[in-house]
């Protein structure tokens, strides 16, 4: 009977281990599906986190199995249930553990019958105590497999970084092949990047300043240093804002203005650039004038001019251009530099 109960214990333990593994597959699949959802929708999930989740689940489930080692009594109860023992093994285990009525006919009868039953039941242990079907285990692998596939795809953060890197690549100087005007949104993105960079590099005006081709990338191929464009979102304040425009290069990128106008005009009317406050600067001599006095660009190719006093005021108070587009701000800043350069030359 002892050998039989030990065999039942080994079998029960292996069944419990298999069931724990089965549950681990299900729980892991569900947990990894949740992680995959996070990975795809919110933020990328690292492999370390995935392994940590799976490892924790495995540890908890296996720890429970190891801790819940079936006792002799539990094995006896299970054997009675499986082999229709009518509580024979259960009673026999209790008889052995107690010394009461050890000589009674009932105790001796139960022990004898239990030994006889153990001998006949032992060959049937593996057949009667069955593990979880393989088909169920295969079913448990499916959500795990789906989760792993989803986790192998790029995560949400990676997608955001990809967008950012695309924006960064747009800042790079255009190649000779790249002569076509970009859509309006690319120009706006470039100008925003330029303004942000200018803000950080005000102390080093000669370091890596974006050239005018960044603003007007289509036609300007001169190697002059790009004017520093102050970040008009920040009140530079008076002359400081103007001074920040000072660059090492005294050349006037006036031609760039004209070419920029051309580039702006070459934009299709159906530009994706939705702002209605775009300023075209046209160089008409020492002054810059607007045609209608309005700072709006209708997108129909008309040219507008900004008067010099207005530009001066704008330079002194950049916030007044807050309603203007980045493009107009950039152009106004460019105009401020132009004015500055003009002032120096007149001097």
């Amino acid at each position, binding site marked *: 009977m002892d050998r039989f109960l030990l065999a039942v214990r080994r079998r029960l333990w292996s069944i419990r281990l298999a069931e724990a593994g089965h549950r681990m597959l299900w729980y892991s699949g569900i947990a990894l599906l949740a992680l995959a959802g996070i990975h795809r929708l919110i933020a990328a999930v690292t492999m370390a986190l995935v392994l940590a989740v799976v490892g924790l689940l495995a540890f908890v489930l296996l720890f429970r199995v190891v801790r819940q080692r079936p006792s002799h009594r539990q094995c006896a109860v299970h054997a009675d249930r499986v082999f229709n023992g*009518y509580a024979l093994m259960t009673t026999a285990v209790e008889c052995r553990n107690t010394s009461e009525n050890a000589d009674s006919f*009932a105790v001796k*009868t139960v022990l004898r019958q239990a030994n006889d039953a153990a001998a006949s039941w032992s060959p049937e242990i593996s057949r009667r105590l069955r593990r979880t079907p393989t088909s169920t285990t295969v079913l448990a692998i499916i959500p795990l497999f789906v989760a792993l596939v989803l986790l192998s795809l790029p995560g949400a953060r990676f997608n955001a970084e990809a967008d950012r890197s695309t924006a960064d690549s747009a800042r790079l100087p255009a190649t000779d092949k790249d002569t076509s005007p970009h859509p309006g949104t690319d120009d706006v993105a470039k100008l925003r990047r330029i303004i942000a960079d200018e803000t950080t590099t005000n102390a080093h005006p000669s370091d890596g300043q974006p050239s005018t081709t960044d603003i007007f990338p289509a036609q300007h191929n001169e190697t002059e240093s790009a004017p520093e464009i102050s970040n008009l979102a920040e009140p530079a304040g008076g002359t400081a804002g103007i001074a920040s425009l000072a660059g090492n290069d005294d050349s006037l990128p006036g031609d760039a203005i004209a070419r920029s106008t051309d580039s702006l005009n070459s934009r299709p009317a159906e530009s994706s650039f939705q702002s209605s406050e775009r300023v075209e600067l046209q160089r008409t001599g020492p002054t810059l004038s607007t045609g209608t006095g309005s700072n709006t660009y209708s997108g129909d190719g008309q040219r507008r001019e900004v008067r010099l006093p207005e530009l001066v005021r704008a330079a002194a108070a950049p916030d007044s251009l807050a309603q203007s587009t980045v493009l107009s701000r950039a152009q106004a800043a460019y105009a401020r530099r132009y004015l500055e350069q003009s002032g120096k030359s007149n001097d």
Partner: protein
Amino acid sequence: MTEKNDELESVMRDLHALETQLNRVLVGQQQLIRQLLIAVFAGGHVLLEGLPGLGKTQLAKALARSLGLDLGRVQCTPDLLPADITGSEILLSDKAGTGTLQFRPGPVFANLVLVDEINRATPRTQSALLEAMQERQVTCGGERHVLPEPFWIIATQNPIELEGTYPLPEAQLDRFLCKLLLPYPEAGSLDALLDTSLDQEPVDQLNAVCSVERTRELHRAAQQVLVARDVRAGAIRLILATQKDSEYASATARQHIRYGASPRALLSIIRAARVRALFEGRAHVAFEDIAALARPVLRHRILLHTSSALEGNTERTVLEQILEEWVQANQ
């Protein structure tokens, strides 16, 4: 070892021999006879319910003959007095003319007492049996008179002709170990009845299978049968399942039962299960023994709500639901 094996086998042999003999008298009632013998060797009293003419009296006689027991018989009527059952003191005069009171024992002073149609006796007379059933003694004139050992009461009652009858009180019902129902025999059984009982009384031809002493030995053997803790716990949960305020109460009990089984029912079911295990060739009780005896042991111990009874529920249907839930929980 061999000697102990023989003891179990000899017990089984005698039990099956008794069963066979009784089956010859009452044909087609194998389950009833098995349950009757179980109750008898568990040391409990039996309430037998059946239509007139089904052989209840014949069965009691056959049992007494087979066990070599003295049979006492009481035919209950509404005018039956308690002294008619327990006995009374009578005044006897000797030759000198001195009168003395002498106790004259009643029919209850027998090993096996058949109380026919107990529900026709008045509650006062019914209560006279309470002390006899529980204490196995009677008190008369301030004196205790012990009943013979072994002692059993087999009470019968008629499920029809309820006019002018007095239903047994719950306190007395609880003292019966089991309530057995005598079903109407089938056609084959009736045919066999013609062969055995047409021109003779089969009881008159019976011989004793067991002596009184052997009956006591069988009773002691049943007391040695082992009950595992799990089985005991299962029996306890079954009894508590009939108690609506218990933590183990079933939903059916909460809804329908007014009073559930008492702790005496637990003792009864374990004692009966021991004997059933011997019949099955086991020296230990199994869950199946508890389940098989739940109906006869519990059917007369639960009381339904009036509203539940008016809805058409009976103790039998409610008990079946409770038992089914218990079996499911213990599988």
